[in-house]
C-alpha cells in the first residue's frame, strides 16, 4: 500500500483512529474474549474421572516388569545379562548358576523400580522375550525394600498376567 502523505492516506489514518476509538469504547475486544469463554462454557469438558474412567492404553505401554515362561512352564530367562548391560539406569542385577538339568539359569534377577526409567531397552535386548514391561501402571510400595522386584515377584506377575502379555506381544509382533 502507498504510505505517502497524500490526502487520501491521511484521511484513512484518521478514519482508522476513530474506528479504534469507537471499538475501545464499545469494549469490542473484551466481548470477543468473553464470547470465547462462554462458548467453552457450553462445550463438554475433557475431564476423565480417573478411577472410574480410564484413557485408552497402547499395547506397547511400558509399565511394571514381568518375567515370562514358556508354555510348558520353563523359565525363559537364560541369564545372558544383555538386559543388565543395556540398562541405562543400572537398575538390573543378575547372577547366574547352572541348574540341575545343566542349563544356565538366573539365580538372582533384581530390578530396582526406583532406578528404572521404564525405557523398555531390557525388553528390546532380551533374545528369548523373557523380561517384558506390562501395561500395569497402578502399583505402589508400602515398606522399604519393596521397590526391589526379585525374580520370584517378576515371575509371579508374568504368571498372573500371562494372557494379557501374550496378547500384547502378539499385537505388536508384526511391527518387529
Amino acid at each position: 500500500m502507498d504510505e505517502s502523505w497524500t490526502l487520501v492516506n491521511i484521511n484513512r489514518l484518521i478514519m482508522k483512529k476513530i474506528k479504534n476509538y469507537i471499538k475501545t469504547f464499545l469494549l469490542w475486544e473484551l466481548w470477543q474474549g468473553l464470547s470465547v469463554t462462554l462458548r467453552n462454557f457450553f462445550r463438554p469438558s475433557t475431564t476423565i474421572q480417573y478411577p472410574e474412567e480410564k484413557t485408552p492404553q497402547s499395547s506397547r505401554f511400558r509399565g511394571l516388569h514381568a518375567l515370562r515362561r514358556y508354555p510348558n512352564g520353563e523359565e525363559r530367562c537364560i541369564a545372558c545379562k544383555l538386559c543388565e548391560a543395556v540398562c541405562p539406569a543400572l537398575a538390573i542385577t543378575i547372577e547366574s548358576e547352572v541348574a540341575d538339568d545343566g542349563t544356565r539359569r538366573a539365580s538372582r534377577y533384581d530390578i530396582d523400580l526406583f532406578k528404572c526409567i521404564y525405557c523398555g531397552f531390557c525388553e528390546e535386548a532380551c533374545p528369548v522375550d523373557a523380561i517384558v514391561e506390562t501395561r500395569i501402571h497402578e502399583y505402589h510400595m508400602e515398606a522399604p525394600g519393596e521397590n526391589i522386584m526379585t525374580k520370584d515377584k517378576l515371575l509371579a506377575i508374568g504368571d498372573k498376567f500371562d494372557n494379557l502379555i501374550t496378547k500384547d506381544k502378539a499385537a505388536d509382533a508384526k511391527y518387529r
Partner: protein
Amino acid sequence: MPLYLQNLVIITTQILAVTICVILTVAFTTYFERKVIGYMQGRIGPNRVGIKGLGQPFADVIKLLIKEVVIPSRSNRYLFVIAPLLSLIPALATWAVIPLTDGFVIADINAGLLYVLALTSVGVYGVLLAGWATNSKYAFLGAMRCAAQIVAYEIAMGFALVGVLMASGSLNLGEIIASQSGGFSQWFIIPLFPLFMVYFISGVAETNRAPFDVAEGESEIVAGFHVEYSGVAFAVFFLAEYANIILIAALTSIFFLAGWSSPFEGWVFLGEGNFLREPSFFWLAVKICFFIFVFFWIRATFPRYRYDQIMRLGWKIFIPVTIVWIAVEGVMVWMKVGPWSI
C-alpha cells in the same frame, strides 16, 4: 417484656437471619464459581463431596475452621485480629437496606443509597488494616495497591450512582426500584447504560476481583494483604470477598435492573396472574445470579490488569465518562426526553 428487650430480640434475630443467609449464599457462591470457571476451562470442577460436589463448600469451611490461626509475633495483634471482621461487617450490614421484595426490607431508611455508599467504603479499611497490622512487605504492598485502587474507583462508582439518583429522584432503594417499574423499557440500564458499565466494572474493582485483583496478586506478592492470615481469620476475609460480590450484584440489579420487578410487566400474552409478570423475589434472585455469573465469567476470561492500567482506567476513562454522561442526563431530564418523569 420491656420495649428495649423486644427491640433487642428483634434486631438480634434480624442480624442472625442476614448473617446466616449471606454465609450460606457465600458457601454456594464459591461452589458456583468453581463450577463456572471449571466449565469454562474444560474441566468439571468439584464433584466428589456430596451430590454433584455440593458438599465441597462445607468441607472447605470445616477445614479452615479446624486450622490454627497463626498470628505473626511482629504484627500488631489487636489490628491483626480486628481487620478481617472490619471487612466482613460492612458487607453484611449493607444488607439491612436492600429490599428483597416490595416492602420486605429490614431498615427502610430514606438515605439508603448514602448508607450503602458509606458502608462499602468502610469495607476497604479491613484490607488496609490487614496489610498494615501484618507488618510484612507483601501485605503492605497489597494494602497500598488496594487503597489507591479503591480511591480511584469509589469516585467513579459514586458518580455512577449520582446518575441513578437523578433519574429516580430518591435515595431510598425501594423507591429507586419503584421508579423503574413498568417492564424492561423503564429500567435505568437503557438510558444510563454507560453508567451501568462503569458501576459494574468499578464494582469488580471494589471487590478486588480479577482482573483487578492486584491487592492479592498471587503471582507477584504471594497473597497480598492476607498473606499471613490462616484458618478462621482467612475464612472471614474469604467470606467478606464473596459477600461483597453478592452485594455488588444485588446493588447493580437494584440500581439499573429494577431489583425485584419483572422485565415482562404489562406483557399481555403471558396471561393474567402469570408469576413471570409479577414483581417478586424470584426476579431479584435471577438478576443477582446473573451478575454473580458475570463476575466469574470475567475472572475466567481476562488476565490481571497492570497497575498503571488500573489507574489509567479509573482516573482517565471512568471518571470523565461518568461526568459526561451525568451532564447528558441532566440535559435529558431538563428537556424531559428521558423515559422517567420527574
